[in-house]
């Protein structure tokens, strides 16, 4: 099986257009994120580049020799670690951001 792993084809100018517009979109969106959330933002952005798993799967199904097997296994495992770990840890962080403490002890003011 020697299928071309490039699932889609597109002209380079189109690909480059998408790239540049996506960068601008990223800048616009991310500039609005407050400093409080910069760690979850980075961790969440980190999970997004786990999309590289799509690429890893594409090369894995085209693999037909031991070198490719090893390379694509590592790529899939790395990318999965990136995706799963990234989203779970981001969620764990974000659930801690509360307006009020979970178990408010006393709210009465004396002074």
């Amino acid at each position, binding site marked *: 099986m020697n299928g071309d792993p490039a699932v889609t084809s597109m002209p380079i100018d189109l690909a480059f257009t998408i790239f540049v517009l996506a960068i601008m979109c990223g800048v616009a969106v991310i500039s609005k994120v407050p400093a409080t959330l910069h760690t979850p933002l980075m961790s969440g952005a980190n999970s997004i580049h786990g999309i590289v798993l799509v690429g890893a799967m594409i090369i894995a199904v085209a693999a037909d020799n031991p070198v490719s097997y090893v390379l694509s296994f590592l790529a899939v495992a790395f990318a999965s670690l990136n995706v799963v770990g990234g989203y779970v840890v*981001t969620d764990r962080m974000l659930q801690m951001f509360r307006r009020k*403490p979970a178990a408010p002890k006393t709210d009465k*003011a004396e002074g």
Partner: protein
Amino acid sequence: MVNLTPLDAFVRLAWLLGAVAFVIGLSRMNSPATARNGNLVSAGGMVLAIGATAVYLLFRPSTGSFNVVGWLIILAGIAVGGGYGLYSARTVKMTAMPQLVSLFNAVGGGAAALIAIDEYLRHAGTVPGLQENVATVLDIAIGAVTFTGSLIASGKLMGLRITPSRAVKIPGGQLVTLVLAAVVIAGSAFLFLGNYNAAVMAGILIAALIFGITLALPIGGADMPVVISLLNSFTGTAVAMAGFVLNNPVLIIAGALVGASGAILTKLMADAMNRSILNIMLGGFGGGDSATAAVAGVGGSVREVSLDDAAIQLAYASSVIVVPGYGLAVAQAQHGVRELAEVLEAKGVDVKYAIHPVAGRMPGHMNVLLAEANVPYPQLREMDDINPEFDRCDVALVIGANDVTNPAARKPGSPVSGMPILDVDHAKNIIVMKRSMGRGYAGIDNELYTNPKTGMLFKDAKAGLAELVAAVKAL
């Protein structure tokens, strides 16, 4: 127009929806109230994009026999990588967050590089077109730099012995960098001229791997937020390049989004330290010219404050601003500071936290640590937002922060000159909780400590806060 089969249309639409979900997810990060939901939207888009890819690869026509080994590899890889990811993400301590994020960043970059390597070897002998050649070289080089660089950064944050957290000077470091850059540039030029050569590509790969190490190793602890952000940006770029190699739009979009995010954070962090990115990359503080000139002129005596006096000042204040630094996290005193705040609030004191952008080991790290200790996020205030409030504040309580409070930053001639600082010295009273008179990362004296308004409370953060809580309660 190219005619799409229904299956083609399905996978492309799913990728588009995935990309849209990433953008929505990131834009919902603009408020703590919607951020968690945003992350779930983004995760949903990811599952959709990956699931659709699997469906597509299973059912697409004309690729001959079903690749059993390939699918086993996918399942095994997802089980191993996903399993470890789930385990580490669930068990990591919040103080250890930067090294874990760094590790995830490393493997993301590594995966992107591996894809390009595999693609390059698959087409052995055929010279790729210039565009594909450029994308492949960039993907391999950037991915490899990120892989080793992030691993080293992660190791430094963990404090491993082979990767000490202090700045490590590499002998002949700049020469090594030049040689590595020369290898990459010469190799790329050779390949771009229309040659296929796996050995040259391997040379570029190895040079990039070494460059990642020499990039991260000389970075000292407090500069870590900049480097982690930069490496994050690199991974995004590498993934986008993998998208160019595979002609895959969702990889290009996702990679570009992350690249932009990392670049913005890098800039913010470098600005918060008033240092250029290049300056940080070239080595820690003290390497500069004017580093030693400034220390003169700082003298004067330091006033100590007793625990009970500090407790009285805090309890009878109407507003207190807590300035936490990384020392607080090192001492695991986040819960102690929240307890103190609660005791003070019960006495009617208004408590806020002033967070410097580089208070932790990655952007926003201190906010996460305090959120974990149940500090409500509206109390966590950014530097520009809180600085005017120091003028009206009765007591500023500095715990484990040093350089970011040093008024010397407002004057020229000091290593911290020009660095934006928290205006702690504008408060009516200042209490600095600190173990000793030790210096901060910049290695200079802090003029704040000799300010007549400042009382020094020489205590370990965790024990000292517990004693303060008890003392305030006893009033």
